[in-house]
């Protein structure tokens, strides 16, 4: 590969591309973590040909409640911070 530099517009384009790919990778990494965590919480039976009753909805609920938890924690910390500040 020859090593002449990319021109400015190409560099900008590549930067945008990398930013987008990085965001996508971060998203994927959260999904991996959530799957791992929710699998441990929800899948209690020996894996069969299908999910057992309730396991599927447990997985979806697990994701939603985890995100609720994270929003809730921010709120609590914010409240505590305010009460200390007074």
């Amino acid at each position, binding site marked *: 590969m020859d090593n002449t530099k990319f021109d400015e517009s190409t560099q900008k384009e590549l930067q945008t591309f990398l930013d987008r790919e990085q965001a996508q990778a971060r998203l994927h990494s*959260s999904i*991996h973590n959530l799957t791992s965590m929710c699998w441990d919480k929800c899948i209690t039976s020996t894996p069969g040909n299908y999910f057992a009753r309730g396991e599927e909805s447990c997985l979806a609920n697990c994701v939603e409640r985890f995100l609720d938890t994270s929003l809730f924690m921010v709120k609590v910390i914010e409240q505590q911070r305010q009460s200390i500040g007074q």
Partner: protein
Amino acid sequence: MSDFFKTSVPSSTSPDLAARKEAVMNSVRSEIALANAQELMNKTNEKCFAKCVTKPSSSLSSTEETCLTRCLQRYMEAFNIVSKTYTARISKERETS
């Protein structure tokens, strides 16, 4: 004026440059795809070993192998459910904020 056109139309760069740009993008894409596949492999290995091989003996039994096969399928399914729920929630939060 000609300079203006050069910067505003990226596809007008030389074909060699465009090919190199494409090559960089493709190698980034395939590296990320590889990392994703590896992560999924590691996770399924870990989770399914924990679930299916409860008491390791001198070789994998056919029951264990059946369990591992199903476990792998369920884990992929779980990944898809989590992915769908997560992205749906993210776009919902983005709409309301």
